[in-house]
């Protein structure tokens, strides 16, 4: 719909005209501000802790806090993996060596309460929230 509107506006003499093709769904999924008629529904972004523990892929395992599960992000903030809290006695290597790649993530506009229900049902304690590009936004805790 927006491409046709863009062409129509150009025909009406407006310039320059840009088409944000990914549209409202992309904006919402990235946790950008919107105006909502009914804002009672909480979303993942609103329920997430916004400063989860992170590390870079080259961080030495020996430098990671024991018993914690940092999210591995690159210099652009893109989620690469997650280091398991239980990683044995061996503290050699880097976060990238021991991380579990491709952790499950949700977008910022995921309805929070159904998400928490699914997490409870499947025994998942935490869920990573990212933009559509995979940039870390926060971490939802089940309890």
């Amino acid at each position: 719909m927006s491409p046709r509107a863009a062409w129509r506006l150009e025909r009406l003499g407006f310039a320059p005209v840009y088409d944000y093709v990914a549209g409202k769904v992309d904006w919402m999924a990235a946790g950008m501000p919107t105006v909502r008629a009914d804002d009672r529904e909480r979303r993942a972004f609103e329920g997430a802790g916004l400063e989860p523990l992170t590390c870079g892929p080259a961080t030495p395992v020996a430098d990671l806090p024991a018993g914690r599960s940092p999210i591995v992000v690159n210099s652009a903030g893109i989620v690469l993996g997650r280091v398991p809290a239980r990683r044995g006695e061996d503290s050699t290597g880097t976060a990238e060596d021991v991380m579990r790649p491709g952790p499950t993530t949700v977008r910022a506009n995921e309805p929070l309460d159904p998400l928490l229900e699914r997490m409870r049902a499947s025994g998942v304690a935490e869920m990573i929230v990212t933009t559509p590009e995979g940039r870390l936004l926060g971490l939802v805790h089940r309890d």
Partner: protein
Amino acid sequence: MPTAVDRSEVLRLLAEDDAQLVEVLPQGEYDEEHLDGAIHLPLKSLSPHTAQVLDRGRPVIVYCWDGL
């Protein structure tokens, strides 16, 4: 020719070029949720008359749900 832009370019155009955001979806969808600051101009009623709400001196960024 309209230029396709992504979210980062939208943010730049808003911040640096004082662009106008325009949602072209029907009334109900705009009312339910729209981008902060967006003007509502539904495609189905887009005409020289209705387009007068826009400032001809500023760039225009249109969007719908997902471009389809």
